[in-house]
């Protein structure tokens, strides 16, 4: 699964959604194009806006060990659902400054860097429709509309 995750994160057309909650419990979803795997297999991405809701929520989750959710949707329709916990916010140092320079060069204007966030991956699972339906069928075979199991001939169709 880790290789699938890496491949998806390296797909330049992959859509990378991050969902967080803060102290008020309100969900908040953003896209994090910068998300990648670090050397330890954790998710790493930039938060560019110091006062953003995402930044505040990530702080809340790091402080209190709360999970965040990530959904990756690749260019071929493949999808992964990830649960993890923020474990680090880098706010200074060589890596921070290098990222800051890169972002300034790319975006210019008011582009800034608040922190480089690391989310420790706790769970990864396939999230495509076929995968999810098959998983449910395996775990809960009785759930769903029963007409799917009808013998069409016997009911005269």
């Amino acid at each position, binding site marked *: 699964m880790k290789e699938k995750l890496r491949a998806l994160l390296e797909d330049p057309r992959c859509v990378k959604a991050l969902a967080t909650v*803060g*102290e*008020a419990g*309100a969900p908040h979803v953003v896209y994090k194009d910068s998300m990648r795997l670090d050397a330890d297999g954790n998710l790493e991405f930039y938060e560019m806006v*110091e*006062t*953003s*809701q995402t*930044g*505040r929520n990530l*702080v*809340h989750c*790091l*402080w*209190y060990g709360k999970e965040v959710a990530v959904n990756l949707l690749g260019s071929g329709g493949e999808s992964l659902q990830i649960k993890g916990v923020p*474990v*680090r*916010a*880098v*706010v*200074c*140092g*060589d890596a*921070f*400054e290098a*990222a*800051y*320079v890169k972002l*300034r060069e790319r975006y210019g204007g008011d582009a800034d*860097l608040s*922190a480089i966030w690391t989310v420790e991956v706790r769970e990864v699972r396939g999230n495509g429709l076929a995968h999810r339906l098959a998983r449910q069928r395996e775990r809960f075979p009785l759930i769903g509309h029963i007409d799917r199991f009808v013998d069409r001939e016997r009911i005269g169709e």
Partner: protein
Amino acid sequence: MAQGQSDWRAWEPGLAEVVKRHPKVSPFVILKTDVQRRGAVLTERARRAIRPEKDSTLYRGINLESNADIPWGFLLRDGTSVLCTIEAEDPDRFERTREPYTIDYVDGKHVLADEGKALEAITWIPTPAYTWKKTRKGTPMWQVLIARPQRMDINLYQTCDFWKDGGMGCRFCVAGATMKATKHDKAEIPDLDDIEDAVREALKQPGRYRSVFLCSGTILTGAEPQDDEVNLYIEMLQRVGKYFTERKVMSQIVATAFTEKQLRRLHDETMLCGYTADLEVLDEELFSWICPGKAKHIGYREWRERLYRAADIFGPGRVSSGVVSGVEMAQPHGFSDEDEALRVYLAEAENLARHGVSISQQIFHVEPGSVFFRQRTATLEYLTAFAEGLDALSRKYGLTCHCDDYLTCGNHPNTDMARAWQGGGR
């Protein structure tokens, strides 16, 4: 009751218990508070793993001189700065009431530990790029400019006129002792050309600084009292300000309480955004005992009035007052009951908040060289409850602290917590 290093844990709730009791306070902030209160000792192997070219160890300022291989602060993994006393292993080191934390080096990482148990991996404050360079006059730049993780610090008058007025220095302060110990190495006021050279060089390091901070001991002289101090700030701020395209750039001074006329000059003639004048103690009688110089030359009520005027001029959330949290328990005149102290302190903090002035909590820790070096510091439970109360007041009155938060300062447990809410939204 006297309690020594061996038994203090039996008398007060420890870190884990305080974290459990205060679910609204960041556990990282509580840990920081405890480290600031107790200090830390660097094991020999941890010391050998310090890389001064990367890990900031050099420091020359009002309250500290460090040219050894021991850092003066570190960061927790959430980005929280911990500026604290860090000492080498030494059986003869100054003994405080509670034993310090340990910083060890395990599996290639520096870790913070207590009672032999590793608590958190830490990283050191990065050495700024200007450190090894010299000014045009040949002064090493580290001697005239300090770099916190995201802030540059200029210390101007590196002593204090209250200390020069026998017995009038603040009783917790080490500025007088620091100056006495280093007077052969540094001037009372560093050369402003040197500072300007260092600032100009520092600004060449992208992503390193979010704010410019200036601090000075009190200067009582001038056409009107403190005018010389104000003029010193104005000159330095103008020297720095000319390097920016914007008229106002994130900046803060921690200074004496100035008159409205002096405050207006600072606001109108410089880049300055944030102003802090430290009451240190939120009780008039204790203020007079603990800060006799401030009491004699300005007085508690006048100091507070000047803070209110400052908030009118700079705006709410841009003016604060530092409190040396826990010094109010100093004996024989301080509070003997922490619940009573908390009630009195939060009531006065709310009074200030109503006028747009927030409180910046600094943790009282005893240091040799201060009058209070034998005092006992407050419990972690008390310090955490105060931080929680201050955070609640800031939220209630909408007092953000962008000029003095975890990045633009990093020395106040209560303002460290503002990063979880300031910025609006839900």
